[in-house]
């Protein structure tokens, strides 16, 4: 299955791209994150402090993935005023 992975803010800069397509047999959001850690060891520690969204909704690390899913890796957010 193909999983579209999106990166934002500092993580986008460390990954040097805003998205990657992962090819996986099966697995969870955490499995996808672990694959990305191996692909980009420099960004690996960042994955410990991220939230994950599956198809635009926050999800748990054990969420099962399906072909065509969009997985977003969300650093701590900082919207709004000061």
């Amino acid at each position, binding site marked *: 299955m193909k999983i579209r992975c*999106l990166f*934002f803010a500092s993580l986008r800069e460390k990954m040097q791209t805003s998205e990657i397509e992962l090819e996986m047999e099966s697995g969870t959001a955490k499995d996808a994150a672990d694959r990305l850690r191996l692909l980009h060891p420099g960004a690996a520690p960042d994955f410990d402090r991220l939230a994950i969204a599956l198809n635009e909704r*926050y999800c748990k690390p054990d969420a099962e993935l399906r072909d065509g899913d969009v997985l977003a890796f*969300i*650093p701590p*957010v*900082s*919207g*709004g005023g*000061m």
Partner: protein
Amino acid sequence: MIRIQAEDFSIDETVRMLRKTGAGAIVTFTGAVRETSHEGKPVVSVEWDAYEPMALKIFEAIRREAMEKFALLDVSITHRKGKQAPGENLVLIAAAAAHRRDAFHGCKYIMDEIKQRAPLWKKERLADGSERWIEG
């Protein structure tokens, strides 16, 4: 109304829109770019990154929650994207209710929830040339 936009917003226009609900109280919160960073260094600009489709969904969810919890008649949420200089507007929350207490509490609830849940990030550029993402 729920919006993420590069251009500035009009507080008057938003309040005028919410007035149509017949509300007795309309509370607005405006967030702006500060002149200085947390360490007191001069800020030149802030620039936004957003997961826009998800942020809009979360704004809508927060809007609905607030309307239900505080008996609000209407809510408007506007967040800027792009780049802004100190003093410029960043965010506008407006909450309309029959009475002031609900409007104040509703407005605060919306802002607090946006800060915790909406996938938006600001990068601060300082006068000394440094820049950094504000995360968390």
